[in-house]
């Protein structure tokens, strides 16, 4: 079984600091990591390989330093990795990104399954996975919480939706985006890290993937970011700081009154 896992390198956003003046992210000291939600896709690929042989290819588009993400994916158990990196790719939105990734996938030959994370934690769109499937014209499904059974020409899956779980059967080759319920990603092994270190770096550009120049990067992107601003979240509500039992009682009474004002109780 051949599995392809497209991944993205993102800034570690849980402790991100914003410059209060410029409204941009303070990048110093922010470590680039594999998109945490992509780890679930890598793990699921590695598990499938362990159960039934096969190979896993990690694929990423990004700046040259994103090679570390490819190496990490290999350390987790992917067999091979390709980085799509070129100035012409820079500034791509999800449309142009999914185009380049789909072109690269076409170049790598036949496959059975593409596994994607639900979305990247920086852009937060979740659009690249379905986008790749649309470019390749293969069946796809999203929010997959379990791979139930892999058959000869199809896969039975569980999809998490708002009100419950759908059980679906999808023909291969196909693309699935997975949610974090699906597994617990493993840490890279020492042996994996050694293998990743020894592996030769593979970087592809537009010509390697037969990409149309007009579909690339910022110029090829239908959407354009015209402004970045800092969200206003402060509500200036009332804040009570009771110091003893009596004041706590008073505070709770005021809370009840507040709920009455809001017509909640």
């Amino acid at each position, binding site marked *: 079984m051949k599995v392809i896992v497209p991944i993205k390198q993102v800034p570690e*956003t*849980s402790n*991100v600091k*914003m410059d209060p003046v410029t*409204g941009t*992210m303070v990048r110093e000291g922010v470590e680039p990591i594999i998109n945490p939600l992509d780890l679930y896709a890598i793990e699921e690929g590695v598990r499938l390989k362990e159960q039934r042989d096969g190979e896993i290819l990690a694929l990423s588009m990004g700046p040259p330093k994103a090679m570390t993400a490819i190496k990490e994916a290999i350390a987790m158990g992917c067999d091979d990795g390709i980085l799509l990196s070129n100035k012409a790719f820079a500034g791509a939105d*999800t*449309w142009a990104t*999914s185009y380049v990734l789909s072109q690269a996938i076409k170049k790598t030959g036949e496959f059975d399954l593409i596994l994607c994370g639900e979305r990247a*934690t920086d852009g*937060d*769109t*979740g*659009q*690249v*996975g*379905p986008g790749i499937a*649309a470019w390749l014209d293969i*069946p*796809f*499904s*999203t*929010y997959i919480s379990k791979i139930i059974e892999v058959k000869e020409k199809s896969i*039975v899956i569980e*999809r*998490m939706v*708002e009100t*419950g*779980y*759908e*059980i*679906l*059967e*999808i023909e291969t080759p196909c693309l699935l985006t997975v949610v*974090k319920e699906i597994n617990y990603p493993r840490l890279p092994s020492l042996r994996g890290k050694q293998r990743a270190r020894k592996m030769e770096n593979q970087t592809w550009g537009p010509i390697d993937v037969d990409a149309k120049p007009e579909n690339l990067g910022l110029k090829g*992107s*239908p*959407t354009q*970011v*015209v*402004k*970045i*601003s*800092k*969200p206003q*979240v*402060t*509500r200036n509500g*009332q*804040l*009570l700081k009771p110091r003893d039992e009596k004041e*706590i009682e008073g*505070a*709770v009474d005021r*809370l009840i009154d*507040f*709920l009455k004002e*809001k017509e*909640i*109780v």
Partner: protein
Amino acid sequence: MSYKDVWILGEQEEGQVKLVSYELLKRGRALADKLGVDLAAVVLGKKIGKNGIRELIYRGADKVIIVEDPALEFFLPEPYVNTIEDLVNKYRPEIFIASATTTGRTVAPALAIKCNAGLTADCTGLDIEEETGNLIQTRPAIGGNILATIKTPNHRPQMATVRPHSNKPLESDASRTGEVIYETVDQARLKSRLKRLEFKQNEEEGGNIQDAEIIIAGGKGFKKDDNFKMVHDIAAILNGAVGATRDAVDLGWATYPHQIGLSGKTVSPKLYIAAGISGSVQHLAGIKTSETIIAINNDPEAQIFQVADFGIVGDLFEILPLFKQKLQAVKKGQETEEIQGA
């Protein structure tokens, strides 16, 4: 032919038009009015109830485009994307908005590729740029740390998804009229390589947080599993749903469907009570559109107080039992009044 009109993608379940459809109509109505064009709702299904279709018009649609076929009973990406692609090519809307539900977030990105259109995910604000008539889309990114304003100047339709429950629908206005169009699609376009075998309904305790008007959520401050029961107790009294932070879910105090924040669900209830929640950027991004936020936390510097309309700094193990007791007393008092009043 040029591109005209604003479309929203309605959703249905068992033929009943879902609430998110009406929410989108409010967004779409504002845009259509600014542009001076019609607003259309598109709904796909096996058979769509007449009441729902009428309600779409009452709540803002000038046109309702219906496609009925057994192949469209449940959401499956291929027949849905193909059908909408054909409709878009036929009618050429200039703006297409879907809800950022599991359906909308699956259909829209594939459709954007097929239609060669730009798509902006999870918008919190949509507006029209006066000089150009372009759609101006605002969305949070990088863990809710920034707001990006995005345009799609040269591609049509301009596509966006909008967070479900981030606004209320317009009031139903029975004097409104509109046109209902039934379309058919080539059977070959309805083929699906993905089949639905069965459905398992959530039977979780604590309710569906995305539909709840009141949510009480707990975080790490509860210290252990047993204590988290307090959240359920208060939710029961207020007839609300139970929410949890990522930490609380990772610790096993609540299950993933209850997780609120960027890695979980975005909610927009009438009342959000955050207890023992410090308010990480990720969590705040999931609750910001709540109408009223109440926070209880022992750290006066906790971020959650920044977004709270009402906050109490203190030990939740002292405050919550008292709150529960007083709430019960108020509820009981109201019941007595109702009985006496009757």
